[in-house]
Structure formats: structure tokens, C-alpha cells
């Protein structure tokens, strides 16, 4: 019975991980930018949900409607004005750039929101879904489902649409994409916007579950790294598979080897997966 409960825990957790990672993976895979800022954007999404709820009484599920366009626009503008200046730069340079931006963001949030932990309490609570002895908290379940739905939408957008193809083309060969009439700068900004949107939205969802503080971003960022490499860079389904795999491994790892070893175990898993399949679970060549 415990096994089923743990499996349920793992699946739900995995869904959240997938959501945390999908935007990160997109930006990394397509723009070749390791966006250290990602974790802080998630936290900002959390603050948005928190204040919308505390000040205006808006339910976090509704704040998504505001968060999505807002973060998309912010990401778009950030890329256009700053990061696009480094468009062809080696990955370590853009990494330094977003590292610097993240230091600023963290410091800014610390000043604006203080280091206190904020918690968003929904009244009345959503309760739990009981499947026999297995219980699943509904807030997490909904957040997970919504996260997966969004990730799925993102996948459809990328794989089926013209713009999606352009995004991939830009990743492969910037100059050739320009020759096809793709406005490379716009695509970069769109992609970064999408990544920021996914981060912001996952932040609003996570706000129902986790206490929010300016510094929790680092933890999300760490998970995003692992998920996205595990699943394969630049692959949205990869982020989904990687997220769920990580959630399940952590949950059973905590059961079998003690919670303090769960993270270590997932790291070892990551290394083993990479040694067997050097491009991650669903990754393809060409995205290194």
C-alpha cells in the first residue's frame, strides 16, 4: 500500500518538476542560453500569485491568466534589450550574463519583499482525493495537471506550428534560418518569452504548495538542471519524462535509502543515464 502512495507522491512531484523544467529546457536547447535567472522568475511568479491573493483575493489559478502574458512580455523584452546583444556568444558568456542578472534579481527581491517566507493559504482548502488508502492533495494534483497541460501545449506549439519549426531552425543554424526569412532576433525573443512564461506560470502554481522567499529560486533551478539533462536538452517531452522520472526516483529513493539520500540518488541516476545514453532520455544529437 505504501508503494502506491509513494508512487502517487512521485507522479505528482514529477509533474511539478516537469513544469519547472520545460521553459528552462526550451531556452537552453534553442537559444543555447543556460538561464540562471529561471529560478528567480519562478519565485517572481510566486510573489505575483501571493500578492494577487493577499491583496485582491484572486485565486492562483486565475492569476495564471495574468501571469502568462505578463511574464511572456517581460521575457520578450529582456531578451530583445539585453540578451540578444550576446546572441552568438559562447554558452559560458551568456551563463555569466544571466548569472549576473540573477544576482541582481535576488538582491532586488530581497529588498522589495524581505527574506520572510510568505505562504499562500487557500480558504477553504481544496482537500484531498482519496483513492482507497492512497491520498493525493488536490492542490498538487491540479497544479500538476495544469503544468502537464501547459507543457503539452508548448510541445504542440513547437512541433506543429510554423513558428515552432523556426525556433528549431534557429537553434540549428542561425544564418541559414535568416536565409529562410526567419527574423532571428524575434524568434530568440519569442523563445525567451515562452521560457519566462512557463517559469512565471509554474511559479504561480507552486505558490499554492511551497512557501515563497527570494532565495528559493536556487532550489528550483537545481531541479530544472537535472530534469532537463535527464530528459534531453531542448526536448519538451524530454522535460516531461525527465521530471516524472526524477519525481519517482526521489520518492522511492527517500523510502528505500532515507530522505537525505534521495537527492544524491537522483544525481547518480542522472550520471548513469548519461553514461548509457549521452544525450539524455529523449534528447537528440545536435543539441549539445
Amino acid at each position: 500500500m505504501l508503494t502506491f502512495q509513494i508512487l502517487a507522491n512521485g507522479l505528482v512531484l514529477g509533474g511539478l518538476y516537469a513544469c519547472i523544467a520545460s521553459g528552462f529546457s526550451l531556452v537552453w536547447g534553442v537559444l543555447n542560453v543556460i538561464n540562471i535567472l529561471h529560478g528567480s522568475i519562478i519565485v517572481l511568479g510566486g510573489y505575483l500569485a501571493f500578492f494577487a491573493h493577499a491583496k485582491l483575493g484572486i485565486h492562483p489559478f486565475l492569476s495564471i491568466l495574468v501571469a502568462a502574458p505578463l511574464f511572456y512580455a517581460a521575457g520578450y523584452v529582456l531578451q530583445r534589450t539585453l540578451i540578444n546583444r550576446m546572441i552568438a556568444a559562447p554558452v559560458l558568456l551568456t551563463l555569466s550574463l544571466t548569472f549576473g542578472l540573477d544576482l541582481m534579481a535576488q538582491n532586488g527581491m530581497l529588498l522589495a519583499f524581505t527574506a520572510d517566507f510568505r505562504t499562500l493559504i487557500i480558504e477553504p482548502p481544496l482537500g484531498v482525493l482519496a483513492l482507497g488508502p492512497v491520498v493525493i492533495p488536490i492542490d498538487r494534483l491540479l497544479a500538476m495537471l495544469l503544468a502537464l497541460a501547459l507543457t503539452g501545449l508548448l510541445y504542440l506549439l513547437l512541433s506543429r506550428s510554423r513558428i515552432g519549426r523556426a525556433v528549431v531552425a534557429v537553434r540549428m543554424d542561425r544564418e541559414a534560418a535568416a536565409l529562410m526569412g526567419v527574423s532571428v532576433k524575434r524568434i530568440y525573443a519569442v523563445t525567451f518569452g515562452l521560457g519566462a512564461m512557463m517559469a512565471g506560470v509554474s511559479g504561480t502554481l507552486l505558490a499554492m504548495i511551497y512557501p515563497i522567499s527570494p532565495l528559493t529560486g536556487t532550489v528550483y533551478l537545481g531541479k530544472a538542471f537535472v530534469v532537463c539533462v535527464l530528459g534531453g536538452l531542448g526536448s519538451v517531452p524530454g522535460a516531461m519524462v525527465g521530471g516524472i522520472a526524477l519525481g519517482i526516483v526521489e520518492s522511492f529513493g527517500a523510502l528505500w535509502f532515507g530522505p537525505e539520500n534521495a537527492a544524491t540518488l537522483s544525481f547518480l541516476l542522472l550520471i548513469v543515464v548519461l553514461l548509457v545514453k549521452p544525450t539524455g532520455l529523449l534528447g537528440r544529437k545536435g543539441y549539445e
Partner: protein
Amino acid sequence: QDVIRIGAPLPITGPLSPEAVKQQRGYDLWAETANRAGGVQVGGKRMKVEIVYVDYQSNTPRAVQAAEKLITQDKVNFLFSPFGSGAAKAASSVSEKYQVPTIAATASSAQVYDQGYKYLFGTFTPNDTLTEPLSDMVKKQAAGVQRVAILARNDLFPLAIAQEMEKSAKKRGMNVVYFEKYAIGTLDHASALSQIKSQAPHWIFATGYTNDLILMRKQMGDLKIEAPVVTMVAAPAYQEWIDGTGKLAENVSSAAWWHPAVRYKGKDLFGTTENYVKLFQAKYKAIPDYAEASASAAGAIFQLAIEKAGTIDKQKVRDALASMNEMTFWGPVKFGPTGQINSLEPPVFQIQKGKPLVLHPQSIRQGELQLGIK
């Protein structure tokens, strides 16, 4: 020189930054109160106090570096230790080296004081003074409690407390059916909690920082975990935790070195505990918790020592500290041979109807231990 300078390395940025805010509030309240009264009486004159803050970015070696900078560059007269036992211990070698009297406001581990240093003093009693009275109370008032589950953050202080708890429980013949650590930065306790649930413990004892324990308490609720006694250290001492868990806070017990409900009549500048709480509330619109009060106490204790020594000479102030035996708003202050305070009786409390009520010590008791959580 007519200003007393005290150095305070704080983790203003990095993962410990919430703690820095608390420390700073406590120190500032003391300095402000002292200065408003004209300063500290040193021999024949009054000297203002100034606290020199440095950020050590939650990074222990940087804390050591900060302490060294404060002493050698900023020429501070005295020092407050950096946050927590680890950093306090690491930095104590510097203050010892330069013979600067130092008070640690947040270091409880005995190892910090065991080093044979002469310039280090601390306002926290050892960790077992938190778990012992609690265990006594549970043993006495809830005889059925046999099975104990302990879940600790794998970090210096939370782990040390958990280990003390294990000892205290075993000493009283209880059965520790689960003892696990969770990693720093854990985002999900569901697995550990599911396992605890399957053990059906009578007493769940968890340690961690505010965010850990908000998350854990929420997940306990989600997984419908119940037990006659649930104790969490140290988060329930913070209003943030009570706000963050809402109804789930009910009947969670905890222990800390100090509580705003304690009642002492001190000889220090704050006088009574009530007065301290009132001043704190006036300035910060919040109730002080033990970490904030300890920081203020550290200042008040320096002041008492300086006034008694009648000088800011480091050697003399150190001797005054070593021989101190005074009542303060924080409680009776007397340092043991290692420099760690040994005169305090830390209160046990429980959240009831959204408010913390003191259960122990007897003299300031406000309520009875309630069993079961909602």
C-alpha cells in the same frame, strides 16, 4: 573616543538571510534604546554605541574573514558572533586570536564552547535543555506515548536537536521507530511522511527552518497524518510559521530558549520582559521571537559588563562577563566555565487557538499540554 563600536557579521544575503534580519532587528533595538538613554555609562562618562554590520553571504569562511576585517580594519571594541553554531565556532578563533570579547547570540552546541577559549560567551543553553523538559512533560501527561518518529534537516543545529531528542526519548523508555534526515533544499516530504504514517507513531518530532516546517506541516495535513504529540523545532516560535500554516499550527508543540510570554524583572536597560516586548512592538509592529530577543540580550549583556567594568578595556570587560550574575529581561545570566550560559530554563510552548502558550517552566505556565493535532 566616545563611541563603543561592536562588530556584527551577519548573513545578510544567501540562504540564511532571514536570520540576519532578525539578528539585526535585535541588535538595532538595543543600540537605539541605549543611545536614546544617552549611551552606556563607562566610568564617569556616557558613550554612544555603534554597531558595524558586515555581510558574510551565509558563507562560513567569509564570516571568519568578516570577523577579522571588523577587528583589524574597523577596529571594533567587541564582537557579536556570526549566526549559528558552525559560523560562531569558526569565527571564535579570530576573536580569541585578537582577544576581543565576543557574544554568540545564536550558538547552542556545546562544541562551540569546548575549545578552551576565554573570550567567547553565549546566550543559548545546550541543546538538551530544549528536549529534556518537553520529554518529561510528555512522559508525565501522555503516558500512552511510546512510538517516536524523528525527521531532521541534515544541517548543524536541526540535526543536533534531533539527536538530543532521540537520547531524551530513549532515556525515558520510548521507542524511536523512525529517525531520518532530509537534505537541505528538499522540495517534498511526502515519501518520508508516508513512511512515518505507516509506522503509526505517537510522537512526531521534526526539525528544520521555517520553510521546511511549513511545507512539512502542510504535507502532513494532506496525507492525513495524525499523532497525539507533534513537536517542531524551531519554526513554531516564529509568527511566520504560525501564519504560514494557519489552522494546521494548532496543538503543535515546540521549545525555545526564550518566549515573549516569560516574565523576568531585569537590571538591564530593558527592565522587564513586558517592557522589552512593548518596545519591540512599537518599533517593528511584531512580537519578538527568541532569536531577536537573544540579539538584544547580547547587547544588553555587553552593556552590563561594560558598566560594571567601568571601562571598555577588552580584558576588563571579558572579566566582567566571566563573573556576571545578573537578572535580565532574557532571564538570569550567568556564564559557565566554558562561556556558555547555564542559568536559563528554556520554555516549552504549544500553539493553541493560533497563539503560543507557555507550558513550562512552572512559574510562567499559561496552559496545559493538549494532545492530538487537527
